[in-house]
């Protein structure tokens, strides 16, 4: 039931709060700008359509991230990535540069489950507890994935923070 609708100002405010973060995460997972844009826009569509109630800003952020990441998985699972055309040289130079840079490039090549926790922990600077909330995992499972990801990357960064 739609008791009321959002005003354009309300949507713009929420958009400014989360759009860049969600797009960064979606792009890092999908590595296709058009697909990332679809995953994020689907998330906002669900938000506008469902008007979910949140217990606070943390809860709201976790919801946006979780729905976006589920959307990315959905795009991958259904093979929709093949329907996108890479937009080389268009619009997002920053994304191209990021994808081709040192450690980040290695991160983007990790298996999805490991990539997700690394992105959220190191690049979005979230805590293990926050990541556990987003991915609906236990803290121990998040730590385990981080350890496996670090091993895969052969790097040892901020390890003392999470053990």
């Amino acid at each position, binding site marked *: 039931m739609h008791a009321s609708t959002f005003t354009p100002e309300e949507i713009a405010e929420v958009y400014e709060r989360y759009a860049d973060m969600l797009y960064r995460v979606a792009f890092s997972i999908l590595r296709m700008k058009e697909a990332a844009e679809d995953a994020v826009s689907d998330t906002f569509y*669900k938000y506008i359509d469902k008007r979910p109630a949140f217990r606070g800003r943390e809860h709201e952020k976790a919801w946006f991230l979780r729905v976006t990441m589920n959307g990315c998985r959905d795009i991958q699972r259904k093979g929709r990535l093949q329907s996108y055309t890479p937009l080389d040289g268009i619009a997002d130079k920053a994304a191209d540069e990021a994808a081709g840079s040192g450690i980040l490039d290695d991160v983007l090549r990790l298996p999805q489950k490991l990539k997700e926790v690394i992105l959220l922990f190191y690049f979005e600077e979230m805590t293990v507890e926050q990541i556990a909330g987003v991915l*609906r995992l236990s803290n121990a499972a998040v730590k385990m994935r981080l350890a496996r990801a670090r091993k895969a990357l052969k790097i040892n960064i901020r390890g003392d923070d999470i053990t």
Partner: protein
Amino acid sequence: MMDQDSLQKYKAIHAPDSLKEKVLSYQAKSVSRTSTVKLKSYVKPLTAFAACIFLAFLFSFPASRDQADILIGGETVGTKPYEITALRRATFMLGSPVWVQLEVSCGKPVRIVVDSGVVRIYGENHAVIGDGTSGTAESGQSVEWIIGDADTDSRYHLSLKGDDTVRRYELLFSEKSGTWSIRLMSKGESS
């Protein structure tokens, strides 16, 4: 520490302007759709009245001895997944309980058993006459199945056990439709 260069390049990724336009256009469509929703609100009482008439007609016939079904919103739940539209919104609130309201149709009292959450059975004057992972219900009684920590990746089961038969229902979340649905999974003889 993560190398600053990678971090800076990552943070330099910004959502394209076209995304904002798309999102704001959803908001505009959402506003225009509310008029349709208002129209639907007039139709609902009529639909409910028709459902009541249908139910009264249905229950005017004696049910077969050990036949048992569950009904939601007056509709018998069969093998085709029944989307519980009332749960559509709740599913998107993290930590919200999944709350399925159903009714039992049976010739004789049946035992309801759930593998997760609790069932609450209501008698006359909406008094709770049963509350737990199982309970006995008679035809026409309201039943609530409440799963406090439902996970959208899991499937949950409810069984209706008669003297001779058992019917097993499955509750699951569909990412596609964004709602929970329930279906009759199997029916067989009681062991």
